[in-house]
């Protein structure tokens, strides 16, 4: 008859033991797969158990080839890198936050339960108990991918949920440095041969003109907005006034270049011509070129800006 009483006494101990064991297990799992706990349906429930005094960042992904999830595969290395960086910190902090990955093929019902249609997704579970317990532990905070898949911003953002900031260092890109060093060196060595080129104004003229041509034909737009060179369906003119593809930059820049070149021809070269007939042909040629290219440019602009009322030849 005392037995239930003992059991009663024992109950909290058992619970604690269970919890501890879970924690131990997670720590072990993390240690095996340098910093990332590989989850399936069961272990998933363990890691988000309601008595957890640890926090967890869980990465839902689908790495299997059949799933054709390119972003997953793009994101994977940064995730691993950040997790690895976290596994370097002292156990006291390390074991209170876990990096875990669950693949679609290991825990389909988990995905369904979370109602996830897309991957990769990273969810941060704050601790439910213990000193760091948060106000509403059962609502995970979804990571915002708006800063891209790079490890640096990822580490910065996840540091909000770890006890101490993640000591992530981006690996030094030796190749870049090497190339840079090589060119500077060669430049310094070749200075005496390059000198006349650098001293020549027309070198700089070419640089200046090309730069301004490229800039004024929307190169920076494509850079900043990360516009593709052409649309997926191969069309190279993006509809709409406020956007453009990389291809357009090339076309427009060369149009501008040709037009201004023909003007230069008319101003600088034609007058040097000493035989009247040749000069006449030249002048007519360049005038025609200007006119035709300009009307091409205008019609191109009409494509971009539907409401434009003016047109030349075509």
């Amino acid at each position, binding site marked *: 008859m005392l037995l239930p009483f003992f059991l009663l006494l024992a109950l909290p101990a058992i619970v604690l033991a269970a919890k501890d064991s879970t924690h131990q297990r997670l720590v072990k799992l993390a240690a095996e797969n340098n910093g990332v706990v590989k989850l399936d349906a069961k272990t998933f429930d363990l890691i988000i158990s309601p008595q957890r005094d640890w926090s967890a960042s869980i990465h839902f992904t689908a790495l299997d080839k059949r799933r054709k999830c390119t972003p997953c595969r793009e994101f994977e290395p940064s995730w691993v890198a950040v997790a690895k960086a976290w596994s370097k910190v002292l156990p006291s902090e390390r074991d209170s936050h876990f990096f875990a990955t669950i693949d679609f093929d290991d825990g389909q019902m988990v995905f369904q339960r979370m109602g996830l249609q897309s991957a990769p997704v990273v969810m941060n579970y704050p601790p439910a108990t213990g000193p760091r317990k948060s106000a509403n532990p059962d609502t995970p905070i979804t990571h915002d991918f708006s800063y891209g898949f790079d490890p640096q911003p990822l580490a910065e953002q996840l540091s909000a949920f770890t006890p101490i900031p993640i000591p992530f260092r981006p690996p030094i890109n030796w190749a870049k440095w090497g190339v840079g060093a090589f060119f500077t060196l060669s430049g310094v060595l070749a200075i005496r041969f390059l000198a006349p080129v650098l001293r020549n104004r027309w070198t700089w003229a070419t640089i200046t003109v090309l730069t301004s041509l490229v800039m004024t034909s929307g190169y920076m737009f494509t850079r900043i907005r990360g516009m593709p060179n052409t649309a997926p369906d191969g069309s190279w003119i993006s509809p709409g006034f406020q956007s453009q593809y990389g291809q357009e930059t090339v076309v427009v820049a060369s149009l501008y270049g040709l037009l201004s070149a023909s003007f230069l021809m008319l101003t600088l070269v034609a007058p040097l011509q*000493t035989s009247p007939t040749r000069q006449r042909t030249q002048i007519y040629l360049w005038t025609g070129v200007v006119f035709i290219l300009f009307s091409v440019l205008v019609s191109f602009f009409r494509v971009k800006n539907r409401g434009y009322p003016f047109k030349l030849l075509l």
Partner: protein
Amino acid sequence: MPKAYPLPTDLSPATVANTASLVRIVAFAFISGAAIASRLFAVINFESIIHEFDPWFNYRATRVLASKGFYEFWNWFDPTAWYPLGRVVGGTIYPGLMATSGVIYNLLHSLHLPVDIRNVCVLLAPGFSALTAWATYMFTKEMKDESAGLLAAAFIGIVPGYISRSVAGSYDNEAIAIFLLMFTFFLWIKAMKQGSALYGTLAAVFYFYMVAAWGGYAFITNMIPLHALALTLMGRFTNRLYVGYSSWYAIGTLASMQVPFVGFQPVRTSEHMGALGVFGLLQIVAFVELVRSHVSSKQFQQLLFSGVIAAGILGTLAIVGLTYNGSIAPWTGRFYSLWDTGYAKKYIPIIASVSEHQPTAWPSFFMDLHFLIFLFPAGVVLCFKQLRDEHVFVIIYALVASYFAGVMVRLMLTLTPIVCVSAAVALSSVFDTYIDPTEPEVSDGDKVDASKKDKSAATPASGASVVGLLTEMVTSGPSTTKKAKPTQRGIFGLDTRAAVIVNALGMLLFFVMHCTWVTSVAYSSPSVVLASHNQDGLQLIDDFREAYYWLRQNTPKDAVVMSWWDYGYQIAGMADRPTLVDNNTWNNTHIATVGKAMSSSEEVAYPILRKHDVDYVLVIFGGMIGYSGDDINKFLWMVRIAQGVWPDEIQEPRYFTPQGDYRVDDQASPTMKNSLMYKLSYYRFPELFGGGHAQDRVRGQMIAKPGPSLDYLDEAFTSENWIVRIYQVKKDDPLGRDLKSANAFDQGKKRKRTRPPVRRRSLA
């Protein structure tokens, strides 16, 4: 020497000169007329009204200046802005604009011309555009000659790239800044050419005016040193450069520090370090020149030279070091985002959220500059051809400005003047060549050369021919050939001349038509009043002023209005009520607070609203008539900015559907549907359609029925086309219930009241 067409020969040079100057004056009058007239579309189509957002603050400040005088204005603390923080206006603005119109206002009144201050403000920009044309004329005259100057003036007068910021009513700093920019540059060129301290000082004075007028003064602060540096590196250091630069920098910097908003920045921030560094460098170089002219011994010179190099390096290191230990502030975010273009989006979403900070696609370049955009490189090349010191300036300017214009739409403004200048140089040299009547005599001497050139010219690939041309230029050197054998250059026959000139004139004509069209269509609508074309002609949509005026007339004077920051200035200007946030976005947290209130549920938002004594909440809603610039379309920015401060309470992904798209209809995510912004926008919207589908005309989606209900706020006013919706924040319930249950109780009672007759009928 043969002539293509006869010229009158019996004119005395004096006559010619006088006629020329008269023609210049007349032409100039016409240019100013065109520049002003083409900016009056807005006044004619609508009325004499202040446009858009920032101008409303400038206008309000100017009214204070005009009514209370300069000192009142100078230490004006505005308690109604950024409630409850308030704003020290005098110390946080560039007063140049207000001071200018204040002076004009008082001048006119002293002449017994009691012009309304509003009209002064509205017409300031067009007036200054005429001055800009003049400044550009002077500048270009330094580059080439008067004819080029007149062309440039005409271009800048009507080019849309400049009109876009200076139509009548867009009363913003840029209105006067471009004139100051061009005129300062002109004075600088003068100073540099003549080495006159007078012009240097004048440049400094106008630089000061510029500093007082526009934040973009940093452009001058870096352009002039860049020019000086380039000249020095090209081995073109002269005492003229030294005098000009030193006088400009010393006086200009001291003067610019008198503007409270600038204060000690010129010696403490990286934007200004370039100027300081070049100043130091010039001192060193000048010193070296001095010593070199006196000392002969070779080794000593070398020693000195190396010493100078060392000094220069040390100076740079010192600046860098100071930057690191923080006594020199690093680049400010706005400035830095010009170089690292991803920076703004990551760290200062407010800046990234402004539409005019977006990168520029090529159509806007063509829209704003039309055919100047491809004459511009030609002009640059011509500057390279005869590479005088001032041409170096044009080249650098062209390079820098075209990059900036590519990065930010609004910096198109700084690109426009130089494009006009160099395009004018190019075009006027075309005219020079083809109008000049002297014909060269035919010389069959160098056939080979001719044929070579012909081939090179005939090849359509311009690159090759350009290269050929360049080589030819380099070998022949700058502008010596003309003097050497004048008959060698020139055009044969009239038809060729006619062809080219007609072509050019055609382009000019087209340019004029283009500018007129763009100005009238794109740039002349004050976004305060909207115009909609329907069957019976043009009809005005005046909801903003309707709602603001309602606020002004029918709410207590100290009622605090909360809205998204875009409308802060307009509310202050037209409704004259305190606002939480406005368009000078100096306090990110405060804005994020508003963002949070807008993007969280009523229960969460209510305490925030009460804590900030908000009485009215104002939202812009376009779904009724399809006004696309409304708050629902800006909503994600509010979410983002709020998320930046409270990442654990606001998360952007929650406002998207699980499929990850942004919807407002029945598929919208619950967070979206519960957000204050959503509720305020669509409150009672479905009822408008009775039985039919409640379609949001902007998003083109059906709003779920019944529409959202409000517990903590009350609809106070909705403008005629529902664009502006104002809600009153309920005070605490007198019975101490929480408002939700109170509201539920009221509605419950209503329902009960309607029940009894039904029961009675059932009895009978």
